[in-house]
């Protein structure tokens, strides 16, 4: 989406307005909100779920939820796209959790999660995202392992054990990559002023 800060502000103002009107059950505003946000949200869901039907279902559920609960957006005090993306991400992670429960009895052999072969890798996406938000320095400051682990977890929804299998590292190592990576990111991003 928009990488220019002025455009980001403009977009956010527009999305906020649309969410406010959606809270009043204005269908035209809701349709515009969908047009504006769904391509981003669909791409996010598709990355995590790696299954078009599941991503469509999640997008649908999320927007029906937004229609009914747009009013709670105001109370959340978040950026509109962050709020919307978080709804979609949480639903995706719920889906993954259900899949884990479903497959828990299956032979859990060394079957690494397939990483999407097409398009940018999670690491490239992390760098592109940092670039779009002008926080490249924060991502660059991470160690290589931390960067990999955080990118795979964030964009593909990988769990600690899936990270360990994919990165061929002991579980303890990837856990500490994630923990330390997050700590470092927090410090740097907060200094960059991304939280209010």
């Amino acid at each position, binding site marked *: *989406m928009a990488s220019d800060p002025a455009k980001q502000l403009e977009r956010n103002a527009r999305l906020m307005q649309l969410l406010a009107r959606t809270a009043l059950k204005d269908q035209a505003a809701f349709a515009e909100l969908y047009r504006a946000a769904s391509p981003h949200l669909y791409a996010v869901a598709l990355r995590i779920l790696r299954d078009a039907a599941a991503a469509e279902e999640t997008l649908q559920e999320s927007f029906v939820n937004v229609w009914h609960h747009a009013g709670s957006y105001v109370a959340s005090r978040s950026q509109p796209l962050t709020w919307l993306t978080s709804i979609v991400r949480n639903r995706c992670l719920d889906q993954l959790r259900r899949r884990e429960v479903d497959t828990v009895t299956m032979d859990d052999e060394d079957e690494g999660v397939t990483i999407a072969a097409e398009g940018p890798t999670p690491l490239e996406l992390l760098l592109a995202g940092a670039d779009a938000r002008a926080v490249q320095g924060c991502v660059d400051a991470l160690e290589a392992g931390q960067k990999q682990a955080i990118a795979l977890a964030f964009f593909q929804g990988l769990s600690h054990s899936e990270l360990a299998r994919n990165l061929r590292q002991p579980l303890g190592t990837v856990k500490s990559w994630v923990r330390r990576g997050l700590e470092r990111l927090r410090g740097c991003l907060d200094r960059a002023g991304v939280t209010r």
Partner: protein
Amino acid sequence: MNLSDPERADAIAGEYVLGTLRGLARTRFERLVRTERRLADAVRSWEERLVPLAEGIPPLDPPLRVWTAILARIQSAAATSRAPASPRIGVGWWRGLALASVAVAFALAVALFQTASERTQGTIVIVLAGQDAKPALLVSAERSSRYLSLKPLAPLAVANDRALELWLLPDKGNPRSLGLVSTAAPAGIARITLPATADQALQNIPALAVSLEPKGGSPTGLPTGPVLYSGPVQRLY
């Protein structure tokens, strides 16, 4: 999970937003976030830090059926709250349009045209069916003509303050309106003028749909009401 230590609680909030907090721990944490302001604030801060990084993902248009299904659901929810007997248009109805009944409807359409002793060589036929897969509207055109003929196969009753609108559902992009479907003369054949020949106007259009709109048609240029009927575009050439 020890959340009394603020540092530890914040670290867990970070793993929750990143997605690595899984299983039972995730469920328990989610429950606590709902009641504890301090945790909710920590989650929000982590969302502000991490979630905008997802903007590096190239956007991708979802298929049109997602929007159609969302509309159907919010419309039926609104209708249900007014009149409990209103049917709910479910998620899968569009995809699940029973193949068998479509085939029956199609055969019917072909039969209609053959008995009319018209040239079937260059005809385009669309049988629009409702949620119950019963054919409701027959739309047809000669490939070189600049209008569509509409023949209701069942009574199309709508309230006085409503209208039926006919839409092209393209491969990609938003539905495009073809105009309103006349409900005045149930037995007659109505015409809708096309911007080009039927052959060109329906190129890359896999299906047509009819939605329920306010009188005068959709105010937004996109369907705002539930999709009542839809059907695939069939070319008899």
